[in-house]
């Protein structure tokens, strides 16, 4: 009988001892958590996807309460979560700036040149290893559709050899952004129609040689923008999306068409 009794008593006793001392310790070392953090944590989706840029929903809730992140920091939760959070924080929800992933390349089969014919694995990452992909422009979309594969929302399609994101379906989960070996997918505010759809840092002449719709760095957009929303860095025009008023002058003036002017006009042109 003692053969079984002693182990049970000893192990049970030790367990009880440690349990009680841990319980006491948790009282002594209790950290006061801001009740707002817990409240916000409950409202957040709890997927711990990390799309907000913080380590999980706990990190995001902390950042919001500390004021480091805006009330609409959760990209996946969208407007409804942002409203709940701002109720807890006691601030106005403000305009929820929905962001969508955008592929910054328009060099499709008819516009961009190839340096070789790629017949390997249908995966951009594999193709990229082989001399940076078949496109002669080293910044261009490879069009193998790795982003299409990782998209859980069926928001990306390959159109004539270049990936295109459906604005309506995109939830800004960043899966495609993380997988793209060329790093040409970026988050752009949903309301901004005009986007410089080129990532090439090559000088204009080289860009021209590779592709007919790339940004050649002529800076016409910079000069013509009435809002001074454009900046020019390493041979590439950049739009400050906050300043942009969607007037469309840049897209009209752009000699190559590298400034994308919204799907509506693209469709109109096609018709």
């Amino acid at each position: 009988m003692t053969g079984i009794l002693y182990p049970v008593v000893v192990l049970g006793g030790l367990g009880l001892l440690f349990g009680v001392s841990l319980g006491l310790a948790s009282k002594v070392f209790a950290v006061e958590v801001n009740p707002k953090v817990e409240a916000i944590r409950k409202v957040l989706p709890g997927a711990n996807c990390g799309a907000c840029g913080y380590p999980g929903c706990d990190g995001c809730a902390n950042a919001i309460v500390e004021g480091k992140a805006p009330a609409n920091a959760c990209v996946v939760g969208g407007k409804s979560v942002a409203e709940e959070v701002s109720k807890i924080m006691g601030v106005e929800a403000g305009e929820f700036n929905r962001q969508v992933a955008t592929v910054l390349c328009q060099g499709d089969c008819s516009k961009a040149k190839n340096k070789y014919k790629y017949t390997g694995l249908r995966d951009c990452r594999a193709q990229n290893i082989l001399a940076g992909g078949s496109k002669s422009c080293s910044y261009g979309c490879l069009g193998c559709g790795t982003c299409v594969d990782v998209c859980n929302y069926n928001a990306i399609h390959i159109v004539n050899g270049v990936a295109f994101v459906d604005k309506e379906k995109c939830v800004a989960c960043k899966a495609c952004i993380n997988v793209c070996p060329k790093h040409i997918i970026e988050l752009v505010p949903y309301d901004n129609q005009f986007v410089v759809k080129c990532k090439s840092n090559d000088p204009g002449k080289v860009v021209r040689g590779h592709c007919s719709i790339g940004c050649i760095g002529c800076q016409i957009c910079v000069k013509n923008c009435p809002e001074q929303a454009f900046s020019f860095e390493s041979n590439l025009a950049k739009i400050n999306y906050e300043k942009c008023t969607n007037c469309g002058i840049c897209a009209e003036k752009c000699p190559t068409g590298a400034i994308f002017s919204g799907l509506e006009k693209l469709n109109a042109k096609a018709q």
Partner: protein
Amino acid sequence: MNIFTILISTIFVNNYVFAQFLGICPFLGVSNKTETATGMGIAVTFVVTLSSVITYVVHHQILARFGLEYLQTIVFILVIASLVQLVEMFLKKSSPGLYSALGVYLPLITTNCIVLGVAILNIDKEYNIIQTIFNALGASIGFAIALLLMAGIREKFEFSNIPKPLQGFPISLITAGLMSIAFLGFSGLV
């Protein structure tokens, strides 16, 4: 064996990471930045030393008295798990920065084999309490040194031109192997 020999032996000759291959998970996991590596080293030093003392007392005063030496493993794990919980609470209160920097690796000390390994080896080698403390101290200092060395090298990786297939973990594993070979040079010292 005197205390000095034990220290030299566990820090260099029988380094728990490089010679006995214990604690490899945090060795590769937390060695990205020297800052977190230092924090982890200190946390492990604290846990290993304290758990060695407690397991020594538990083993000789309780288990040996009732002839329950066969319960060693499970009791030791119980001790370590509780201790890590305590350290976690303590860190959360006293230094939230270090707490968040260590992240998931702090609770993972529970399953870090170096902690259990040192506790069991102390008993196996029949050390007395003083020797136990210094063996644990040496083991964790050796672990901290290994972690710091690795972190220093990995910080340099960011600026070096590593062939693509080797980037990330492959080069870290190769480095760890080379460091282990280098530490073999200490053998015969004690």
